[in-house]
């Protein structure tokens, strides 16, 4: 090993250390930003070291240099612009988009490597062909699957489960085709062309697998696909015999797997059932008619404002409706007005509130909600019995007391004990169902009052109501 090689390998090792330490620093909000910067610094070092290798080896053709720099520049600009411009509520679909292109890049590496090897006399070893096939398969499924997931969250693809006629059989057929082609490729019978066939099958399979999954399950799917991209990148690392790719890919594979498990647990869903699809109605508009079945007490914004203004302790429970209406600023403005009146305000945040775990925290933080007021499920539940008003903004299934009883779709799901508060005010557009598709028993309880409005408008009216008593 020359001195140059040694230095490059040490830089790669340092970069890998930065990735691990960076993730570790993301453990707490205070150090998370530093963690991300450390990880970015490691990435920059790895890229510079690789650049130095390319210059040192002096093997690249002028066309290759042009293709690499032009592509990288275009991608970097596209990434920067979208990442800076996109509103916070659209964050999950953007992460999914970045995940898609990452998976695509990993698959293209294996494809490009196979194309190059087809011009060489030496036949690649089994470890190369097997990892090449795995990279193309996983990367391809991730690319198209993440694009569909992103489209579903952005509303470009219907959020409800879309069943393709014969979709299951088509997926099985695709899997068999891909397996057959993979066998031929590993046996050395087909070159890059056979690999392209595998890539095409993977792309179609990604779409067929993601379409039948409802919008509610998308966070879990995105997390799963994130893990897949990590694995695909690690496979690309095996193909190229590059340790930074193997290390970082495996790290992300593990991260995605853990997150997927946590999310699925919090939603009381099994990962298998989610992949099977067909669950949930997705992003439903104003759905069921108001007042079906048991009587519901509705309340005006003025009365609700009065209740809030004279409460001692208020817990705000934000949900998907708040994220959809982009009402985070109104929520925080209301909380601030109440705090100024001496009301003790906190936010009770369910692990899967919003569109991704922690998404609600990001939205509220964007609107400058003090971090200390954001409480998670275990912290806030003991506080509900001493709470005067629980204000539920666009949350549904995560507050349904039916979860405590067996025998219904939300059974066993951890919920916020909103019904233990003295009074409950629910801001909601209608009595429509949540993703679980069942009535929320909270709404028909005697202590609950419904304020039928869009979250943004309802909160603005409430704020006006509170201000009226602040004079």
């Amino acid at each position, binding site marked *: 090993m020359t001195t140059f090689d040694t230095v490059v390998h040490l830089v790669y090792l340092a970069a890998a250390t930065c990735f691990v330490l960076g993730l570790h620093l993301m453990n707490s909000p205070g150090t998370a930003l530093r963690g991300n910067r450390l990880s970015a610094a490691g990435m920059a070092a790895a890229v510079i070291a690789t650049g130095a290798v390319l210059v040192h080896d002096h093997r690249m053709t002028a066309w290759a240099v*042009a293709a*690499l720099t032009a592509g990288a520049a275009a991608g970097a600009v596209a990434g920067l612009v979208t990442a800076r411009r996109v509103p916070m509520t659209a964050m999950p679909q953007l992460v999914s988009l970045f995940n898609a292109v990452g998976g695509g890049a990993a698959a293209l590496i294996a494809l490009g490597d196979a194309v*190059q090897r087809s011009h060489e006399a030496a036949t690649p070893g089994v470890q190369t062909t097997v990892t090449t096939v795995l990279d193309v398969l996983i990367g391809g499924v991730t690319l198209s699957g993440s694009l569909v997931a992103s489209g579903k969250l952005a509303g470009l693809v219907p959020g409800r489960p879309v069943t393709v006629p014969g979709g299951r059989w088509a997926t099985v057929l695709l899997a068999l085709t891909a397996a057959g082609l993979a066998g031929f490729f590993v046996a050395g019978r087909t070159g890059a062309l056979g690999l392209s066939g595998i890539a095409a099958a993977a792309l179609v399979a990604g779409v067929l697998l993601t379409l039948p999954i409802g919008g509610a399950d998308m966070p879990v799917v995105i997390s799963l696909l994130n893990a897949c991209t990590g694995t695909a990148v690690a496979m690309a690392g095996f193909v190229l015999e590059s340790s930074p790719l193997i290390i970082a890919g495996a*790290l992300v594979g593990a991260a995605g797997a853990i997150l997927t498990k946590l999310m699925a647990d919090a939603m009381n869903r099994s990962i298998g059932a989610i992949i099977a699809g067909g669950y949930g109605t997705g992003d439903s508009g104003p759905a069921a008619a108001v007042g079906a079945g048991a009587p519901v007490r509705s309340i005006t914004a003025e009365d609700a404002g009065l209740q809030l203004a004279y409460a001692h302790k208020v817990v705000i429970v934000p949900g998907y409706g708040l994220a959809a209406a982009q009402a985070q600023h109104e929520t925080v403005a209301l909380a601030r007005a109440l705090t100024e009146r001496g009301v003790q305000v906190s936010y009770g945040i369910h692990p899967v509130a919003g569109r*991704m775990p922690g998404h609600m925290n990001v939205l509220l933080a964007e609107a400058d909600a003090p971090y200390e007021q954001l409480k998670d499920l275990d912290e806030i539940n003991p506080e509900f019995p001493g709470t005067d008003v629980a204000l539920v903004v666009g949350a549904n299934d995560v507050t349904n007391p039916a979860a405590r009883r067996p025998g219904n779709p939300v059974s066993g799901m951890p919920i916020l004990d909103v019904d233990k508060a003295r009074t409950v005010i629910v801001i909601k557009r209608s009595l429509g169902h949540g993703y679980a598709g069942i009535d929320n028993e909270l709404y028909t309880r005697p202590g609950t009052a419904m304020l039928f409005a869009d979250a943004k408008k309802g909160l603005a009216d409430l704020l006006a109501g509170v201000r009226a008593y602040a004079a």
Partner: protein
Amino acid sequence: MSPLLMADITVFLLSLLVGFEVISKVPATLHTPLMSGANAIHGVVIVGVMLLAATATTVTGYVLVLIAAAFAAMNVTGGYVVTERMLAMFRPHREVKP
């Protein structure tokens, strides 16, 4: 099995275990930024694209490098910038207005 492959498999397995250990300690609040941060880390695929570019000698190869470079660069830059934006919003020690 070559010693190099053996070493690669060892590194792969140990990295998986490190990932499980480091990540299982992150609180739910930070899950979205974490997913985004992990998403940025697999942007290391750009290093792979650079290594691929070093071997490309055909038109097909160049086209693949061009697309892969655009994809990977978008993943890595966008991933870090978005994570930075999310995390910059957490202000742990802000004063609550009286």
